[in-house]
């Protein structure tokens, strides 16, 4: 019997965190983030940034450009390695290549916005700032340590013209990005102006209260473990998400060949879902109370602007590519993420909190180093590091070591070390891994001092 009970608790906690992930605040973050990632990948030509990464680019341009390149171009891991290799072998050299390699996986729009919503803006900001600063620091250090090699290298590959090709990002693309980013920010920023309700109405019916009671009995909320439980609002959103998944499959899989009716249905449903997610919905005794929040007004206005631009300012093939890239990211990341969330949720019920507290409950050098090493040896799919980190956090991990782990996990995995090894050789890879380990540990430690 005990086995059955344990299994039940495992499934409940797993389902609880899964439902919480699909609930309003994550939706409002992840949906726009995927659209932004798709737009970065489809609308910004690599040459717009790589032209600053040529052999002759001065240091004060090539290092920041590499960091920016990591942010903009590295949403897809399959582009990182070829670009890394060509910056190293034919372009600005070892230093900027390392900066690119370091910044890329840690600072992409999906990872940052997801971290911000799930774990906290403090960690998300620290992740951006420290990755960029340390990325440039490690790049400069590597270039200095191996300055002799780099010089010989430089002479051997002179005359390559490929970095000279330029490409400009047109103004309308910038405006489009600002709008998409505004959708993301309006949906996730926790300020009164956006979260307050300006009008409230009640959908009558006693069913709402009963339904909520039933949901609470199936997936009991447990604040001790940080398990949120499921609301009526959440169930509605999950239903909408399933509809989106089906229509998007029919409408977006072949969007590169043209739009069909399902494409518009799917996009319409996504708009509707973002709207519904921004309502403030609570089950009350005599029905469902729905609050029209500032967030709702902002989301609707911004999404309308995005639609208008997509139709008026861009050519059909650009929008096709945008949606195609977006959908590709979703297919690549979401299934693994959902499994990761479920398993990470179950882990909360299994791992005793005392373990985590003993190992990483305080901000010490050891705790930070353990966080980093865990990140290196455990390979989690893109974004899954975030629910894992949240599990650790709810089990009592200090935010310092948590940041150390979040920096190291996407940065270093056995797989990426092996590929890096093939491009820059064993000695440089060893030094790089060592530097990343030391810097990530330090980053966690310093961050931990400021935050209690």
């Amino acid at each position, binding site marked *: 019997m005990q086995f059955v009970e344990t299994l039940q608790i495992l499934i409940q906690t797993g389902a609880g965190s899964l439902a919480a992930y699909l609930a309003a605040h994550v939706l409002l973050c992840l949906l726009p983030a995927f659209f932004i990632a798709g737009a970065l990948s489809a609308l910004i030509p*690599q*040459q717009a940034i790589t032209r600053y990464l040529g052999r002759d680019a001065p240091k004060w341009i090539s290092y920041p450009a590499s960091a920016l390149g990591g942010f903009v171009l590295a949403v897809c891991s399959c*582009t990182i390695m*070829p*670009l890394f*290799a060509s910056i190293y072998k*034919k372009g600005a050299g070892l230093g900027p290549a390392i900066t690119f390699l370091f910044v890329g996986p840690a600072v992409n729009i999906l990872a940052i916005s997801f971290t911000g919503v799930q774990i906290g803006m403090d960690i998300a900001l620290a992740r951006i700032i420290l990755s960029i600063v340390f990325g440039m620091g490690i790049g400069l250090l590597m270039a200095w340590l191996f300055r002799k090699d780099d010089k010989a290298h430089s002479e051997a590959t002179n005359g*390559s013209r490929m970095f000279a090709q330029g490409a400009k990002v047109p103004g309308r693309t910038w405006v489009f990005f600002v709008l998409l980013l505004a959708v993301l920010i309006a949906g996730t920023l926790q300020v009164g102006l956006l979260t307050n309700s300006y009008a409230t109405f009640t959908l009558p019916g006693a069913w709402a209260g009963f339904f909520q009671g039933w949901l609470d009995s199936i997936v009991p909320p447990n604040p001790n473990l940080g398990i949120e439980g499921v609301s009526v609002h959440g169930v509605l959103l999950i239903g909408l998400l399933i509809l989106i998944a089906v229509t998007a499959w029919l409408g977006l899989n072949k969007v*590169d060949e043209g739009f069909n009716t399902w494409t518009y249905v799917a996009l319409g449903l996504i708009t509707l879902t973002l709207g519904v997610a921004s309502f403030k919905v609570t089950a009350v005794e005599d029905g469902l109370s729905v609050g029209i929040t500032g967030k709702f007004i902002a989301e609707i206005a911004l999404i309308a602007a995005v639609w208008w631009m997509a139709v008026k300012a861009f050519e059909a093939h650009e929008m096709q590519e945008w949606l*195609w890239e977006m959908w590709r990211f979703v297919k690549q990341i979401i299934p693994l993420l959902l499994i990761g969330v479920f398993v990470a949720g179950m882990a909360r019920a299994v791992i005793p909190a005392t373990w985590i507290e003993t190992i990483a409950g305080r901000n010490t050098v050891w705790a930070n180093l353990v966080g980093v090493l865990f990140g290196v040896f455990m390979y989690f799919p893109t974004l899954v590091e975030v629910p894992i980190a949240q599990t650790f956090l709810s089990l009592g991990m200090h935010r310092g070591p948590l940041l150390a782990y979040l920096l190291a996990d996407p940065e270093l995995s056995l797989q990426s070390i092996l590929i890096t090894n093939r491009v820059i050789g064993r000695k440089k890879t060893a030094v790089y891994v060592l530097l990343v380990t030391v810097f990530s540990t330090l980053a966690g430690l310093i961050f931990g001092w400021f935050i209690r």
Partner: protein
Amino acid sequence: MDIKILGGGCAKCERLEKLVRETVGELGIDATITKVKDMDAILAYDILGTPALVIDETVKSSGRIPQKDEIAGWIR
């Protein structure tokens, strides 16, 4: 005509391959299309990023997916 598509098997590379095959088929051109997946072989070309399109050993595009009529212009 010798057409090579450079790329380590990511979705973009597959899409480029599909586009190229379609264009070649539509124009009725006699061409051999090969996919190059080996990292060292890819880096032997002057490219920045994958997917890249190489026609008769000249790099035509890299780091992006060209439009179909663009491809048609290169292979015609």
